[in-house]
């Protein structure tokens, strides 16, 4: 794509400045990760405008400093000069700059509006996690949660809804955000161009655990995505595991769904392929055995406000079996 080339030139200052500014910085949440066309366009826009802003700021400061230092010799001449300053600096210059910027932005918006999507994913904001549906409204409709995988190079239309409060769906590395508003369906087009694991963030304050409402977005080659997508439709892998009984007797199934088992709760995240995900607790923790055990027993220490009840009194043996089972849900 053409953006790649100009993007590189304009991102030069970033490449020079970044190592200095951001030693040890993770790019997973950065607008500058350059993983989507939207983010690349905004990044280019940002560098141009930010440089312009710094230049204009310096010029205005220099002008003010000079004005403060100068004592007029011929007051009439100076006053004429001052009036010219107001006319050109205060009126004509801002008009020219903002008009140019506005036309540019309008063309960008137009381009975004005309773009077509290769695939559709529905995302519903929940307190405080994400319900993700692939191929919504079709035969192949499959529900998952808190992790989205996308094939690189294909554009995706996200259909965004919410049933509780307002959330906002934002994957900074890919592009801009759009709110999820109860009673409405909004949409957002993203076009990932760089493979990697990126972080999605809820950008609208949605109460209690808003800060810990994250999402993992993995952009991968088309064939990997296809394989993963086929696996996603499969029912639970370990239906004969003794942990399933524990899962059901402790009432987990009232909130969580495990496709192919009696657990069909709709309140909490779908868990059919839990262990295949890379994160836990809506994008905030690594998917590891010990963390998962901790999550079940000390849920509220890890994510204050979370609606899932903790199970601190689960006997160690039972916890072990349950975690075994969950970790087998590949």
């Amino acid at each position: 794509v053409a953006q790649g080339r100009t993007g590189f030139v304009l991102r030069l200052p970033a490449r020079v400045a970044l190592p200095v500014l951001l030693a040890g910085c993770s790019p997973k949440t950065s607008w500058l990760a350059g993983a989507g066309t939207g983010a690349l366009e905004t990044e280019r826009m940002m560098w141009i405008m930010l440089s312009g802003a710094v230049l204009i700021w310096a010029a205005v400061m220099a002008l003010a400093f000079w004005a403060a230092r100068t004592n007029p010799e011929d007051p009439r001449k100076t006053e004429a000069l001052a009036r010219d300053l107001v006319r050109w600096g205060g009126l004509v210059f801002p008009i020219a700059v903002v008009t140019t910027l506005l036309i540019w932005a309008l063309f960008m918006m137009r381009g975004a509006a005309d773009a077509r999507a290769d695939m559709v994913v529905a995302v519903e904001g929940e307190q405080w996690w994400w319900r993700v549906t692939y191929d919504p409204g079709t035969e192949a409709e499959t529900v998952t949660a808190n992790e989205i995988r996308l094939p690189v190079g294909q554009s995706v239309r996200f259909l965004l809804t919410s049933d509780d409060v307002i959330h906002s769906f934002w994957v900074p590395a890919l592009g801009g955000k759009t709110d999820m508003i109860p009673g409405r369906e909004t949409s957002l087009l993203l076009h990932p161009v760089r493979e990697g694991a990126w972080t999605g963030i809820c950008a609208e304050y949605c109460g209690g655990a808003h800060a810990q409402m994250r999402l993992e977005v993995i952009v991968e080659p088309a064939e990997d995505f296809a394989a993963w997508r086929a696996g996603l439709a499969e029912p639970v892998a370990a239906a004969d595991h003794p942990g399933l009984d524990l899962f059901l007797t402790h009432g987990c199934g009232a909130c969580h769904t495990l496709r192919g088992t009696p657990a069909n709760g709709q309140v909490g995240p779908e868990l059919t392929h839990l262990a295949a995900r890379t994160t836990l607790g809506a994008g905030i923790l690594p998917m590891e055995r010990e963390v998962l055990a901790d999550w079940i027993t000390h849920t509220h220490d890890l994510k204050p406000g979370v609606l899932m009840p903790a199970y601190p009194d689960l006997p160690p043996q039972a916890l072990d079996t349950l975690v075994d089972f969950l970790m087998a849900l590949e």
Partner: protein
Amino acid sequence: MTREVDELDPPPPYDPELDRAQRERLAAAWKTPTGWRYFSAVNNSVVGLWYLIGSFAFFAFGGLMALLMRTQLAVPENDFLSMELYNQVFTMHGTVMMFLFAVPIFEAVAIMVLPEILGARDLPFPRLSTFGFMCFVIGGVFVCGSLLFGVGPDGGWFMYPPLSSSEAQTGLGTDIWLLGLSFIEVASIAAAIELIVGVLKSRPPGMRLNLMPLYCWYVLVVGGMILFAFPPLIAGDLLLEMERAFHWPFFDPDKGGDPLLWQHLFWIFGHPEVYIIFLPSIAIIATIVPTFARVPMIGHSWIVLSAVGVAFLSFGLWVHHMFATGLPGISLAFFSAASEAVAIPTGVQIFCFIGTILVGRLRMSVPMLFAAGALAIFVFGGLTGVMVALVPFDLQAHDTYFVVAHLHYTLIGGALFPVFAGVWYWYPFATDKALSERLGKWAFWLMFTGFNVAFLPMHWTGIQGMPRRVWTYSEADGWTALNMISTIGAFTLAAGFVVLVYDVVRPKKNQPYVKRNVWDAGTLEWSEEVPGMPWGIRSIPYIGTRYPLWEQKGLLEEIDRGEWLLPDAEEGKREMIVTDLLDGRPLFVQRVPGPTFKTVIAAALLGAVFIFATYHWWTATIAAAVLTVAAIIWWLWTGTAHPPEKPTKYVGRGMHLPLYASGTASVGWWAMFITMVGDMTAFFGLVFAYFFFWTIYPEWPPAGLGLPHAGWLAAGLVLLLAACAAMAAAVRLNRKSRIGAARLALAASAGLAVPGTLGFVWACWGEGLNPTEHAFTATIWVLVLWLGLHMLVALLMPLYCIARSLCGYLTPEYDADLRNSALYWNFMAATALIVFLLLAVLPHLLGGPMP
């Protein structure tokens, strides 16, 4: 053209004995009460001081909230604040800074200096100022105090439903926020009315609009903005509280409501609010710059036009807070363009300041230092504002720390630093003592450095993806170093503020008085003698220039010798001259009331109404409301529109002025008019809700809900219009001395108001419309409720006038009460007509499925 001032008699020869006697009488009339009665004071310089102290106390509280947040965010996964507490703290920070500091500080400074800049001895409604101040303090303490009991509001200062509309989501804190702030908004509007009338009617003789100092222009513009911006929020608050308390589903999508309605109402308030904060501070800069440049401001009229331009534009760009809500591209483009356009008038103002500095010979001092710092910070904030106003950029930046950085650059640069400049500049005016130049420089450099260290990195934090309103983040996010730097900066900024506060409050008993007009300024407030006198200005001069102390030679001495108008208080009353709002012609002498506790009691009772309503103690609420009305009637009865003992008064220089006015000449008529403009704006907020729902429903009116009975509505309208006509007839009959007939007309008006209102209520009730069933029926009921509440006041007015007439306070010559009541009734007729059209006519005109 002969000027009025040339037709005045020459001043009498100076008589030291008379001067002394006049000064004594003035001092007696304007004496500030002492002891515990100090709190009954109403004069602008006392109330202004209270307002300043109150605003800065809330500022310190809001700043403390900021430091708590910065401490929590200094390191990742911090447990200094819990999630619950952090959510309350950030909500309170925004709320306190916006509602309890930024707007009140404008009112504080304006109440303090505006009359003196205008050469007036007070504002036209001193008791209204006290009332507003007391409302502000009671409401503010109530809202802030909630945090101490762990029930602080936690829905964000923007209070978006459904988070804020569901009692399951947010608890008592939201009710405290909604009702406490509605109460504070009453105070803001009261002050706005006071200041608008002050600028329009209490200018010195001869001060035509074109001679008015820039500060006053800004006050006028901002007062007008408050009048149009706050009422939509009050309407929004009403809808939200009705949903919380009574389940009227305005924002519930399951019952036809829409959460976005709140966002529109909130930001129709919220964006003008930003300029309501910004313009008064620019006004301070516009006052300071000419003084220190020692030349008049260049481009005076350009600045006035720019201020008016910003005010207009500010009402047309609220949607730029909603770019991410998925609105259609065409509206995004429109609001993006309007947002960009603000850069133009702002640029003009800034370049006028720079141009003035260029023309003049600049003298540096601490106020100028703060002004320069303000410029450096604000210009950068303005430039990032140009960035975030572009939709594609905003979709990334929105709700990130980039926006946190941007808004603090504009508000701290555009509002806070100028306020500090103003505090420094006017401190000698208010106290006759100077602040320390050395401490001032320390305060400035600590604050300037601290500010930039705190907020410059935040742009980058936002670019790195940190969203707003998060109480924690993880090490892996990579935001640690940036946050630590910001925290260090925040504490440095706070240290600078502490230095400034210390300098202001340190005892200065042994410090000498400053010299008179310490900055050699050109505006009238510096004509005050040192040490200052409670009456403000010794005699009220004719003004023929923009900078009278520079351009009218010998003016100071003439004022001091009492050669100008109203140099005496023969009757021991507080008096001021009211002038024509266009050309500054003296119209009459207004007697303003002195110290009283009545306003304090009225404010406390009104506070009780709001506080009881928060806890849903409805009986107590209604009882407090009745007592509030009684207290206000008591205040009005004893304090306003008393027929004077003589029709005119000699004010000096051969001029006699009336002691009473009614109708458009009077200040009361204008206050009523302006109040009702604000009131109608709130009403239009409700009308907006009606049309908003019309645009989102596929079928209008929604099927199966029923409609109000058109016949009953028509009957109600006819009765209310007749009641309004009866009021108008009462005015005419009274003027023709047909007092009995006038009283009869007043009684008829009251008698028609009751069945007229009931007609509207029954039209809905009789048809079984249930406000909890659907947003449409809730909207219909809220319009009727609005009309009904206003009719309660409307009913009291003719009864009040009958009582005044019977007691001899209302006569054919002295009819201000009656004319103001008739004016109110005109607005009621308009309200009733609009409600009728919305309920009885439009459902049929707009009916059927949407095209």
